[in-house]
């Protein structure tokens, strides 16, 4: 099958919009992806470094409160702390709003999809209520700048990010013979090392052993984070001496972040990593059982390009199988909501001017009912790729209810369902959906049937 602009928007992008022209070719998609990040400009999200309220804001507020206990200043200090908490909760919805605005109005949907794909690959969860709003800034800083570039750069940024360090307990891990461990009777924690090998690089089928996990954990000691400095390297808690990971010795001499970075860069271009990433991408975008030849070709192109992710995408987009009309994947709940709003052409101002209550009602709460509680997957392996995991009775109840009720809340004037079916599904919608859009009793039911249809939910 040759490239198809409708499939390009639906399968690799954020869905069709009556107002935004789809890409003209696979090369056009790659050109948009490797060009400037226009969507980030229309709906900015701060980086972890720039975000308000920051971890330092919280730390200062809690210190000020402790100092003010029993004085006249206690009430003001308490108020400041609860304001920060409230602002943090608001920021969660604010960043969700920005992500929706980007996805609904971008002409580079592939970038939004890849950003969420890699953010999911490097899943973090907030380990404290005061960090819940920091997931989007983590993605903005560590993931998004690298989605069309070097995987090693992304891996290094992620491992240096306080969100990942705190999520997988790396700040708690000390070399058993390090100065800090000796003084404080502490030691190793394998969590990040194991997930780095199992999830982030080689994959669970990759050629590593428990000994590699242990050695990598020892090598990672020293990588830590705090409120003031974010992610940083603290030599006093690093295990002295060299460590051997997958047969290569790293470190020795003075402990240094460079030894960790060297190992990460090697892991990033390991053949098992290339295969793991290629397979995962093909599964995410095209098919639960991708063609092995394509996966091999993607992995080979990636290794040839020294770990440049664009090379991998290029092979996937040039493959004829990617343009098969058979839609084997289903939209995850966020993509379902965003692509619905895109098909409805919800104006940018409507999204950006929505109140936080609106964002919660239109997106945050429905996401939970559909099984995708915002930025809270159960484990570090992120969200499921299986259609069966999403299209469940309760998941469909959530999707159908959203389809029938939310569009009329968001838009004053709903489009005519007989036009909308083409906005949402392109020039050749399936006959039964065309029929149903015409046969609905009300406009909002007509819109709802189109959005709830398998034809719209699949990609």
């Amino acid at each position, binding site marked *: 099958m040759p490239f198809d602009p409708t499939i390009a928007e639906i399968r690799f992008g954020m869905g069709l919009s009556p107002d935004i022209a789809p890409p003209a070719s696979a090369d056009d998609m790659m050109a948009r992806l490797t060009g400037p990040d226009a969507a980030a400009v229309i709906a900015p999200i701060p980086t972890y470094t720039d975000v308000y309220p920051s971890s330092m804001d919280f730390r200062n507020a809690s210190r000020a409160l402790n100092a003010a206990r029993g004085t006249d200043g206690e009430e003001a200090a308490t108020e400041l702390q609860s304001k920060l908490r409230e602002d943090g909760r608001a920021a969660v919805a604010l960043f969700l709003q920005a992500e929706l605005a980007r996805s609904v109005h971008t002409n580079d949907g592939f970038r939004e999809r890849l950003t969420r794909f890699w953010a999911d690959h490097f899943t973090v969860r907030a380990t404290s209520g005061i960090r819940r709003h920091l997931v989007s800034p983590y993605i903005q800083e560590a993931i998004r700048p690298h989605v069309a570039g070097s995987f090693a750069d992304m891996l290094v940024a992620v491992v240096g990010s306080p969100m990942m360090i705190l999520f*997988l*307990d790396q700040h*708690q*891990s*000390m070399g*058993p013979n390090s100065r800090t*461990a000796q003084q404080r*009777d*502490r*030691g*190793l*924690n*394998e*969590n990040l090392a*194991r997930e780095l090998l*199992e999830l982030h690089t080689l994959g*669970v089928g990759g050629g590593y052993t*428990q000994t590699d996990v242990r050695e990598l954990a020892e090598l990672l000691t020293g990588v830590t984070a705090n409120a003031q400095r974010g992610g940083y390297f603290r030599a006093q808690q690093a295990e002295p001496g060299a460590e051997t990971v997958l047969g290569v010795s790293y470190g020795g001499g003075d402990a240094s972040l460079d030894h960790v970075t060297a190992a990460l860069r090697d892991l990033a271009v390991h053949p098992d990593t290339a295969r793991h990433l290629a397979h995962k991408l093909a599964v995410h975008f095209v098919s639960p059982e991708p063609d092995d030849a394509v996966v091999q070709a993607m992995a080979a192109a990636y290794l040839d390009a020294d770990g440049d992710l664009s090379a991998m995408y290029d092979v996937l987009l040039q493959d004829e199988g990617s343009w098969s009309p058979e839609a084997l994947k289903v939209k995850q709940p966020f993509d379902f909501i965003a692509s619905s709003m895109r098909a409805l052409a919800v104006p940018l101002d409507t999204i950006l001017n929505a109140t936080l209550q609106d964002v919660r009602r239109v997106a945050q709460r429905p996401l*939970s*009912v559909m*099984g995708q*509680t915002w930025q809270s997957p*159960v*484990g570090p*392996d992120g969200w*499921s790729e*299986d*259609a*069966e*995991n999403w*299209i*469940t*009775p*309760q*998941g*469909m*109840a*959530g999707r*159908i*209810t959203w389809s*029938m009720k939310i569009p009329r809340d968001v838009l004053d004037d709903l489009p005519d369902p007989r036009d909308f079916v083409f906005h949402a599904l392109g020039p050749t919608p*399936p006959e*039964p*959906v065309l*029929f*149903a859009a015409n*046969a*609905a*009793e009300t406009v909002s*039911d007509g819109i*709802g*049937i189109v959005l*709830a*249809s*398998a*034809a719209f*939910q*699949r990609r």
Partner: protein
Amino acid sequence: MDRRRFLIGGAALGCSAAASPLVTPVAMAAAPWDARLVVVILRGAMDGLDVIQPYGDADLAALRPTLLTGEAGEATDLDGFYALNRHFEPLMGLWNAGQFGAVHAVSTPYRDKRSHFDGQDILEAGLPDLSGGGLRDGWLNRMLQVVPGLEPEVAFAIGREQMLVLAGDAPASRWSPDARLQISSNARQLLNVVHHDDPLFRDASAAAIEIAEQISLQGDVDAQTEDMMAQSPMMEAVQSNGEHVKIAEFAASRLRGDTRIASFSINGWDTHARQGNTLGRGARALNDTILTLRAGLGPVWDKTAVLCLTEFGRTARENGSLGTDHGTGGAMLYAGGALRGGQVIGEWPGLAEGDLYDQRDLLPTRDVRDYAAWVMRGLIGLDQSTLEQAIFPGLQMGPNPGLVL
């Protein structure tokens, strides 16, 4: 040769369920047995050594210098050898009533790579490993497959997450207590039209509409459940009103009706750091869940078995951050009026250096599937050969541990 066809011939069920005086005509319409089985998957790898502490083993204290056990950890003595972690104290009432117990030093056949996700898949698939495309279905679903003619409401997977343990060819229901659905009959017909050729969407939508309707029709059953819970002293010990409590309430309301099997998960057991605190979160969720089931099931509790299974145990030694890393052997917790509680059973392997698996983990002395199989044997009356061949292929159940009363 065709095992399944043979089983559908009716040989799968022994006589105990059918002969039970508890089987009412209404229950017979849904399933040919009356007992209730609740399977709770504890995701994240519960530390069996900390929950059911073998404090009578002289080697335990040295392995866990800060994760205090026994008296030092304010645990409650159970039998002179084992003690119950302080976070699980609310379950002592059930222990004393003989309705809460544990099996120790057990695991699935999964070894060595210690991945949560593969470990959970193996636990729920009930298979020795993941080779041969082993993830076709879960063992609870295979249990349903051997009993012909069951209605989907006989088994419920509850919550937002996928429960592989109940997934498979046999019909089972899935629902989350926070889901709602009301649509016009016209829209409902049009949904049938647009989903006609897509079985995944067609079946999920039809089930959603049917379950939502059922629930609104059975409002009186839910009201009864609420009344019973309001009157039950058990509910005083329930500490929260979180999602897990809503799931347990929903499970209880279904199980009081035609549902015989319910499964859901409780997350948060991956206690790599500060386990003294972090274990408390999972413990509270599990306590609340069991106590809510106890209260919500009323008289049905007496014929109920709750099995709490986890993908693997954790390292015998505490790690360097006051927690534990991924291990092998662990414990299965169980509760319910149909089971013989007030005991911790299992062959204890010891914790000396040479006793550990891979010099780091509690050595499993028995396959946890043996216990699940024996519970299904006793509760539902399934043949041993069916259990060893169709439900847990290749399992040898070994001697009966006598969990079912």
